[in-house]
């Protein structure tokens, strides 16, 4: 895991786009709400829209809002972002997410009010 560095959602989005192609918020929203061959979608724990406290689907633990508009701490530390993409993509897709998938989801999350 890399060393924690401060970042902004816009910077992270640019870096994911640089590794893939232009982000599509619409594709990101669809990705977020869909199951990908496993039991859960992103929305299983984060709900849609993810702009409020939600509960972990298994443990009931409160999860703070994922959208940066509702929780400025989100997408502000690239090591943390990478860690959670790795964990949660494994849970939802059974593999790591591609840079394009990350770009799409993040670009949509940045539009959530």
């Amino acid at each position, binding site marked *: *895991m890399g060393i924690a560095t401060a970042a902004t959602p816009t910077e992270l989005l640019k870096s994911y786009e640089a590794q893939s192609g232009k982000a599509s918020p619409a594709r990101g929203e669809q990705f977020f709400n869909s199951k990908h061959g496993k039991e859960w979608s992103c929305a299983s724990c984060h709900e849609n829209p993810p702009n409020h406290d939600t*509960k*972990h689907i*298994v*443990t*009931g*633990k409160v*999860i703070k809002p994922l959208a940066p508009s509702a929780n400025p701490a989100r997408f502000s530390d690239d090591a943390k972002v990478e*860690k959670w993409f*790795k*964990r*949660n993509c*494994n*849970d939802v897709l059974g593999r790591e997410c591609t840079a394009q998938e990350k770009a799409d989801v993040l670009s949509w999350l940045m539009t959530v009010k």
Partner: protein
Amino acid sequence: MHCPRKSRRAVLAYDGEIDPMKLNQLIVVLGTFLVASPSFGANMSMPVNAPASYEAECASCHMAYPPGLLSAKSWENVMANLGKHFGTDASVDPKTQTEITQWLMKNAATRQKYSELAPENRITKTSWFIRKHDEVRADVWKRAGVKSAANCGACHTDAVKGNFSENNIKIPAK
């Protein structure tokens, strides 16, 4: 059964004179004993020296379980397999893994009652957990306000402070 009266008087009264220093010491000793005694075992308070990584890495998805709820060997087993952690990927970097593992093992259950090897490494499968919850009906565990036996705080209102006393229980109605 035949001696207490006389001997108690001997200890407490000391021929009618109580040395205040001795009494203070006695109170401290008794207090320590009571706090640590089994009848007060519902208090599993979180050690004050928990590394920040414990909250950040573990308590994002479930409450920060006091290490005293599992044996050292069970914690070691849990921490050795975080990539497949009860159905989710909870992996952490190696440095953090070592830090959390060492702290959990150092503060793990020591009393025999709590220190069994937990089946499937689950707190909820230990015999003491099952015995303590044997009056909870199956449908109660499934209520939306409970969701899972892993959600201690659903009923144990002070669980985050490590207080599992029967006086601090409120079971969600639905």
